[in-house]
């Protein structure tokens, strides 16, 4: 099942609904890269609350999404990392740098507004 991507003003919001296979993660990467250009988006929010695990492949893919988006002029924020997933990532020694993270959607939107210096708006 493809990850739904909503356009909210100058931002894109990808809301992962369930556990994803590796190929579904790559599809999400390509869909986002495509839409950033189409909608001239300045920010991307990826909600990972429904992900069962963030392993090395998912972490690397999220970093690659952020780098791709950055080359296309957009900032990426990851929201909703669950507490148990965060513990596993620390123990595994995975990091999401240079990704921005936020606790929830509201915080992510505020972070994007700051990064785009008020030029981008979720309207």
């Amino acid at each position, binding site marked *: 099942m493809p990850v739904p991507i909503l356009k909210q003003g100058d931002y894109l919001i990808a809301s992962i609904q369930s*556990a*994803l*296979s*590796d*190929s579904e993660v790559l599809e999400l990467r390509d869909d986002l890269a495509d839409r950033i250009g189409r909608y001239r988006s300045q920010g991307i929010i990826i909600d990972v609350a429904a992900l*069962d*695990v*963030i*392993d*090395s*492949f998912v972490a*690397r893919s999220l970093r690659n999404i952020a780098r791709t988006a950055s080359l296309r002029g957009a900032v990426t924020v990851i929201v909703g990392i*669950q*507490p*148990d*997933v965060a*513990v*596993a990532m620390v*123990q*595994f*020694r*995975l990091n999401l740098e240079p990704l921005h993270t936020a606790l929830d959607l509201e915080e992510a939107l505020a972070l994007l507004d700051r990064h785009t210096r008020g030029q981008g708006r979720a309207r």
Partner: protein
Amino acid sequence: MTDDITVPIAADADIVVARGEGRTLASRLGFSRTDATLIATAISEIGRNILHHAGAGEVEIGRDADERRVAIVVVARDQGPGISDVQRALEEGYATGSGLGLGLPGSRRLMDEFDIDTKPGHGTTVTMRKWRDRDALEVVREARGRDD
């Protein structure tokens, strides 16, 4: 062992099934939600290793126990090319092809026991265990069950 589940790994969707089964059994064996996630993450990594290095294989998930403890046991088997230098494969940042290099050392940190049996040309078997202490009530209940 009645709890044993074997998941064939031949496509990336199978990895999702294997880690889901691991999480379910971990919860049933009394592991915390956090431990279940650690176990599911380790299964995801070794499942991907099978797919990338051997193309196919299987993940078997079961239970082990001693007097005071319960374990979840994960065995990942493939008939692939094997690993020629196990020491290096367990080092941080060592990667072959996939550009990962985190999978095996990361999984080892998530579990309590981690063992690799491999020979070039003869496939690879990774066995991992995570243990949980049984509380006093559990031990008493089991002893009572045996008396009945």
